[in-house]
């Protein structure tokens, strides 16, 4: 095939291009992932019993602030990584900010608490449930975020995969927070933090396979 023939083929009847396609597909993935995560949490566990109480709102709000920050930052960055060369516009430090903040707060909480409470504060009642649930609930959001990135042309597949995993983990944690009764900041820092990072690691591993074009 001659290159000029290919160019002729490609430039016959050119339609205007939808410039918001990248951000829209990621928004759709976030929406789908959030609905799937919340629905799964309600089906598996039901909402926490005191969801109607004002006290609970403060606790849930703090957890949501962390997971929603992860979701917001990773969706913005995923919108960049889905484009060729977008990896130049991504800073690892910024992505890590919510994790650094929650760890700092956890450190502060532990420092001001008597050491006898540390065990309770870090392990909570249900660390194992959290450890299993967040990655499990993240499966559908993960499929959604990967599907979104696959429609575009990431050139750093590992990083794009990691961010898609991070976003899925953040969405899953947001859903799980509506059920989880462990409200201490150290618990959130350790178990939410670790499981979300695990999702990102899975994404980094699968990215080069799933995102090739």
């Amino acid at each position, binding site marked *: *095939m*001659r*290159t*000029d*023939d*290919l*160019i*002729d*083929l*490609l*430039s*016959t*009847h*050119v*339609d*205007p*291009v*939808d*410039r918001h*396609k*990248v951000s829209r597909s990621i928004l759709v993935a976030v929406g789908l992932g959030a609905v799937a995560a919340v629905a799964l949490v309600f089906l598996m566990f039901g909402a926490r019993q005191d969801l109607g109480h004002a006290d609970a709102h403060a606790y849930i709000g703090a957890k949501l602030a962390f997971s929603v920050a992860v979701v917001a930052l990773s969706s913005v960055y995923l919108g960049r990584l*889905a*484009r*060729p*060369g*977008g990896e*130049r*516009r991504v800073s690892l430090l910024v992505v890590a900010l919510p994790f650094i903040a929650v760890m700092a707060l956890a450190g502060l909480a532990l420092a001001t608490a008597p050491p006898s409470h540390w065990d309770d504060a870090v392990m909570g009642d249900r660390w194992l449930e959290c450890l299993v649930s967040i990655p499990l609930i993240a499966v559908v959001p993960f499929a959604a975020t990967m599907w979104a990135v696959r429609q*575009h*042309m990431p*050139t750093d597949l590992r990083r794009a995969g990691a961010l898609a995993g991070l976003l899925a983990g953040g969405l899953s944690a947001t859903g799980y927070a509506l059920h989880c009764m462990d409200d201490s900041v150290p618990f959130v820092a350790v178990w939410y933090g670790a499981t979300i990072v695990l999702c990102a690691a899975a994404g980094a591993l699968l990215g080069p396979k799933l995102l*090739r*074009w």
Partner: protein
Amino acid sequence: MHPIESELKALMVASLAGDARAHRDLLRKLSGYLRGYYRGRLTRMGRGVSEAEDLVQEALMAIHVGRHTYDTAELLTPWVHAIARYKLLDFLRRTRVSATNVALDYAEEVVAVDDSASTESALDLGRLLTTLPARMREAIQMVKIDGLSVAEAATRSGASESAIKVNIHRGLKALSAAISRERTP
């Protein structure tokens, strides 16, 4: 700003708005730079000219199919360079040459050499088209090769205009993927 950058970017912005002539101009100009880029790198590795032409066509396909991923707030050259380099590394991976042999390069290098001496690639468009589902193949044949308008193609095939457009888009995307697969040894 690099003069080539502003020229190419203006063409790209017009092409994104649906200007077919600007789109053709852009692809023509880019094909020259891409040829220079690939020939330079492949000959250094002892590869042939026709492989460079294959890569030029693969990159042009990707640029066309994925032009929605260009953010007009950014420079165009780094975007083109990222695609060109991705395709180069992908090619080397498929042909089992270690990527460590590829020197680091910078965005401007993708427009450093303009080489208009095109050759024929090993790709056979007619044969590749037969690998596509019939709906897509017919839509591409009617609009992109026979030059019918989308409306004419819709009447002739009994499909809606939007179905024709979707089939062309999906077909070109599938074609682009088929080309990459084709060249896997």
